[in-house]
């Protein structure tokens, strides 16, 4: 913020700095420099004083030196030529008898960040490595890393690397740790410091001398060491054992990280034992005074719970929220509480959560209500009682979340539907937001025959449809009214008529209008047809398993332990949410990255996805943050990389045909050598997906839009009502690392696919030879069809292929879920 007098002040300062009287009096001189720095910190551009300041650094006063260096380092990049003048003074300072001055000079020499100065810096740096004073060596060692950072593509001087390796034996522990840090930085491309047996033992022996930061660094580097024998491994583990209980949270976490990386591949029992042992310190970290540390600890506990579901069960009370805790802590604590529920503590946990439901912060209240909903999957009676009680409060935001939670609950626990239907009466008056109303409409539609007032509630909605702003509510209203009409025609006919009339004649939103038209035509086809389309599944109990789900192996998340990743927003929340249902991409509708929402019954697939996708993800290339079980399945090695699909580069129909036909032929038939090699990289997979709708009769536009949303391009499809019904599609897959790290595997593959639906009979035949697909599908109704999916990929990447198939499956399920 350059205030008005900025330029004037700079002039004034220049005059003062070049005044010989000021220069003679070192106190006045220093005070003037102090003013310069003060003005600089206030945001005034004082770059013009550079040459005056360069002169000022030739002084014996250490404080003045420091001040001038602060200035020089900030503006050096703007004045590379003038900076050359400083180098001389700096080099002279490197010879100073005072080690403080030497280290100061070295540090600032390397902080100038000017590639043109590198040649002048190397010699003093080399001398610095052999300096008597440890504080100079510390600076010199890191100085080499800084130089390398400045010119990352130049060759590294092998002599320097050797010197640094040998300096791991330096007497000063900070120098040793700095050597590790510098080597890590310089040898990044070769994978960091090479840890052989000698180095590993040396580091282990000196671990105790280091400060907290150093210990964490050493422990992290040691993760790369692989002991040759099991005996050696156990020696190391028992040496490190005390650090597991270190009072310093970072050290404890780093040790645990090392244990996990040493043991998780071969000795899961040992890593489990280590996890059990660190319970105490972790719990202590959850109670630490700093909210940020608490948050970090909670995120990591969530990570641990993925592999050890029962961990800390006895200490569930530690996760009760304090009144003044920030919302992010409360939400994480509730997520943990949900995981820790068991028969003994469920009563107390629910009582506690019930208390949070009326929290002043709507977000906390919502989180508490959804937590109760998730516990309701295992303990439905108690939870429903609480939820019903909350409806009685008639609070707008609470009612909305409760209805949404009930919607979810009914979907996974069909046995709850009776009590939910009873509770619904009267809450339509309290509901204001669109999500809450959508949930209510869905419930009314699906269970219309059991809610006595359903047609009349819908009638009230239809009367106000003109003033309704949300397209989502309107489409939901359409579906609900249609469904209620099917089971209670006499009461609903008039309402439905008015609604359809309004939507077709007056509605401006194309999606709503299209849907209304679709229903209208559907009704023309006859009541049985309509019933077949509209009355699909009402629930999916398989999603509801909360207790007794399989634990993930530790190795799936070990690499991201003790980093930033577990803290990333929504991440851990989704993981824990995802655990409820290991077999589906479609899970709890709350987390932001669900691809598709099983509860959305709308016919228009595109619209469904649009609503389920977060705005950020609906952007250009949809990142498929797959939920935990898949992320693990897809990327066992890359530590949480995500698969993303993209449409570019686009394929023309001719190219597609050429590639497709080329691939379907026998790979070894009449092909040139080069092409043959390429062919071997290809892979062709056939799979069948059960869908509960009749694909060839539904609108192809909806399917196309839905696929487009997940970045799958449809190339061509057969017109509706023809058999066999086919769709051709393509996409590109790419791995994306969630955190910008070394540009990892930029492997892109092209995926071409064909969906084929031949009618009910052929599907049943295929059922028999489809064995490995057992986990993927569920028993469905008899009118379900099967779509045969043939996919070709080039070059071959099984992980990406699996990811793609999951996405495709999920999309088809969504489109078919009405």
């Amino acid at each position, binding site marked *: *913020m350059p205030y008005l007098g900025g330029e004037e002040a700079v002039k004034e300062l220049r005059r003062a700095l070049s005044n010989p009287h000021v220069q003679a009096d070192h106190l006045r001189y220093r005070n003037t420099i*102090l003013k310069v*720095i003060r003005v600089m*910190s206030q*945001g005034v551009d004082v770059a013009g004083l550079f040459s005056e300041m360069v002169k000022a650094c030739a002084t*014996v*006063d*250490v*404080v003045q030196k*420091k*001040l001038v260096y*602060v200035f020089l380092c900030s503006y050096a990049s703007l004045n590379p030529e003038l900076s050359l003048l400083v180098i001389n003074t700096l080099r002279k300072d490197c010879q100073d008898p*005072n080690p*403080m001055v030497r280290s100061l000079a070295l*540090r600032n020499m390397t902080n100038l*960040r000017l590639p043109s100065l590198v040649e002048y810096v190397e010699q003093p740096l080399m001398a610095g490595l052999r300096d008597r*004073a440890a*504080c100079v060596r510390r600076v010199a060692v*890191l100085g080499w890393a800084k130089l390398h*950072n400045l010119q990352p593509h130049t060759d590294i001087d092998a002599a320097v690397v050797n010197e640094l390796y040998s300096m791991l034996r330096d007497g*000063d522990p*900070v120098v040793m740790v700095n050597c590790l*840090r510098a080597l890590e930085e310089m040898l990044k491309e070769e994978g960091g410091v090479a840890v052989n047996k000698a180095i590993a033992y040396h580091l282990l022996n000196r671990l105790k001398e280091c*400060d907290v*930061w150093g210990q*964490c660094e050493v422990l992290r580097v040691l993760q790369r060491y692989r002991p040759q024998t099991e005996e050696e491994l156990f020696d190391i583990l028992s040496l490190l054992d005390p650090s597991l209980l270190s*009072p*310093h*949270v*970072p050290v404890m976490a*780093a040790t645990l990280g090392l244990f996990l990386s040493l043991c998780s591949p071969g000795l899961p029992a040992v890593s489990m034992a280590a996890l059990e042992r660190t319970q*105490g*310190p972790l719990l*202590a970290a959850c*109670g630490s005074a*700093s909210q*940020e*540390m608490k*948050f*970090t*600890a909670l995120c990591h506990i969530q990570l641990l719970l993925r592999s050890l579901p029962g961990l800390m069960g006895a200490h569930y*009370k*530690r996760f*009760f929220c*304090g*009144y003044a805790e*920030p*919302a992010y802590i409360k939400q994480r604590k509730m997520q943990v509480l949900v995981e820790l529920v068991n028969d003994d503590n469920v009563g107390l946990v629910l009582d506690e959560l019930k*208390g949070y439901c009326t*929290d002043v*912060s709507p*977000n906390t209240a919502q989180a508490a209500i959804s937590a109760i909903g998730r516990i309701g999957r295992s303990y439905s009676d108690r939870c429903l009682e609480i939820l019903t009680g909350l409806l009685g409060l008639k609070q707008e935001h609470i009612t909305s979340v409760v209805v949404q939670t009930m919607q979810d609950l009914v979907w996974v626990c069909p046995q709850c539907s009776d009590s939910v239907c009873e509770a619904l009466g009267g809450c339509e008056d309290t509901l204001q937001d669109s999500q809450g109303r959508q949930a209510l409409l869905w419930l009314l539609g699906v269970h219309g025959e059991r809610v006595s007032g359903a047609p009349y509630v819908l009638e009230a909605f239809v009367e106000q449809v003109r003033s309704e702003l949300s397209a989502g509510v309107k489409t939901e209203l359409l579906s609900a009214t249609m469904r209620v009409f099917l089971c209670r025609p006499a009461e609903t006919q008039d309402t439905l008529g008015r609604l359809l009339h309004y939507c077709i004649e007056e509605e401006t939103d194309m999606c709503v209008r299209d849907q209304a038209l679709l229903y209208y035509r559907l009704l023309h086809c006859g009541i049985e047809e309509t019933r077949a389309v509209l009355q699909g599944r009402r629930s999916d109990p398989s999603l509801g398993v909360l207790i007794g789900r399989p634990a993930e192996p530790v190795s799936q998340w070990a690499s991201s332990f*003790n*980093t*930033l990743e*577990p803290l*990333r*927003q929504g991440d851990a929340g989704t993981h824990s949410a995802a655990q409820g249902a290991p077999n589906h991409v479609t899970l709890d509708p709350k987390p932001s990255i669900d691809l598709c929402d099983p509860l959305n019954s709308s016919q228009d697939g595109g619209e469904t996805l649009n609503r389920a996708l977060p705005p950020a993800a609906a952007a250009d290339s949809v990142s498929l943050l797959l939920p935990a079980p898949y992320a693990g399945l897809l990327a066992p090695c890359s530590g949480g990389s995500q698969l993303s699909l993209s449409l570019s580069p686009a394929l023309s129909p001719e190219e597609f045909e050429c590639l497709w036909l080329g691939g379907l032929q026998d790979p070894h038939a009449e092909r040139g050598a080069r092409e043959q090699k390429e062919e071997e990289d290809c892979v062709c997979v056939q799979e069948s997906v059960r869908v509960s709708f009749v694909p060839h009769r539904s609108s192809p536009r909806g399917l196309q839009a839905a696929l487009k949303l997940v970045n799958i391009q449809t190339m061509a499809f057969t017109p509706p009502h023809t058999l066999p019904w086919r769709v051709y599609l393509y996409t590109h897959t790419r791995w994306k690392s969630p*955190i*910008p790290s070394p540009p990892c595997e930029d492997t892109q593959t092209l995926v071409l696919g064909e969906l084929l639906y031949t009618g009910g009979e052929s599907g049943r035949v295929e059922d028999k030879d489809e064995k490995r697909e057992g986990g993927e599908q569920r028993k469905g109704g008899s009118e379900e069809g099967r779509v045969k999916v043939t996919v070709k990929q080039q070059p071959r990447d099984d992980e990406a292929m699996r990811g793609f198939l999951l996405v495709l499956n999920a999309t088809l399920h969504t489109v078919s879920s009405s």
Partner: protein
Amino acid sequence: MSVSAVFVLDLKGKVLICRNYKGDVDMAEIDHFLPLLMQQEEDGLLSPVLLHGTVHFLWIKHSNLYLVATTNKNSNASLVYAFLYKLVEVFTEYFKELEEESIQDNFVVVYELLDELMDFGFPQTTDGKILQEYITQEGTKLEVAKSKVPTTVTNAVSWRSEGIKYKKNEVFIDVIESINVLVNANGSVMSSDIVGSIKLKTMLSGMPELRLGLNDRVLFALTGRDKGKTVTMEDVKFHQCVRLSRFESDRTISFIPPDGESELMSYRINTHVKPLIWIESVIEKFSHSRVEIMVKAKGQFKKQSVANNVEVKIPVPSDADSPKFKTSTGHAKYVPEKNLVVWTIKSFPGGKEFLMRAHFGLPSVENDELEGRPPITVNFEIPYFTVSGIQVRYMKIIEKSGYQALPWVRYITQSGDYQLRTNT
């Protein structure tokens, strides 16, 4: 670890001071920090990690400052937070109060400190005691700074420098236990634990060797040898000066203390203690007319002990008016800006029971804003008493010169996070 840059911002998001350590993140990125923070706060999704593009901001707030570290790597989050808190600790040691004004008044020292604390994104010298030896406040204001290297930078005893002299050699030992309790509205204790610490104020010359003797009961608990009757201590932490190997072998706590104030050890006891001050409350709210509050406080500790400066803070609705109080002892005061009644009892002997009644009027037009239900909180201090029964048996001070030194011991039990939930 790898922090790219560290910023100190004021509440408006203006950069007060910054230090670019690695140069791999654009310094202008910080301009996105506060807008992002405000937006998340509005959405109620605030978290200590903010993401803008590829840059992560890890931040903490201290009084009227934000301390922000930026990184574009998958850094170790707990270490970064630990470093930011270390910054606060070191700055506070220097300026007593860390706030906007003290940063602006001392920006030279702040620049110097930032330079020493971290280099190239890696923490270097972070011990406040050592830093204080070569970055002195006086040095920057008046005289030419000391230009000799402090001995501790290379010393074996990094936490104490040689040549310290006092006229009168004394050690003050404070044993402080603070009690955290959470009691549910129906009177059941949800959680309770004790956080204890032994604090030293050392005013001793030379390089003294100290030995601290604790009572056996506590020692057994510390070493975990006796699982039976005694309380179990968790998270026992010693200051780095304590020779842990010695402690493990013969259970003596021996050390060369840092000069001045330091925390020798801390521990946590996670056990169901009876809440020392028990509160029963009846808060009746008659909508549109009045609130009636009846609070009974009972001292559940030994008759010989006395709790001092007891403050019971009872929440009242924000629209309450015309307070009336009746107390059996102490006095009650209405603090409208915090929506609290504070009932103060200067001295509260063990085993006694006191009563307070309060009456408030409520306006006939109801406040339709949803209000939280804050808990009743209690502050108190009980001298000469510890819940765990920890006792200092002796403190031996041995120094080459053979001077006589006096150890002083004090015990205090105080309230920590002491909350009792209410029904309304």
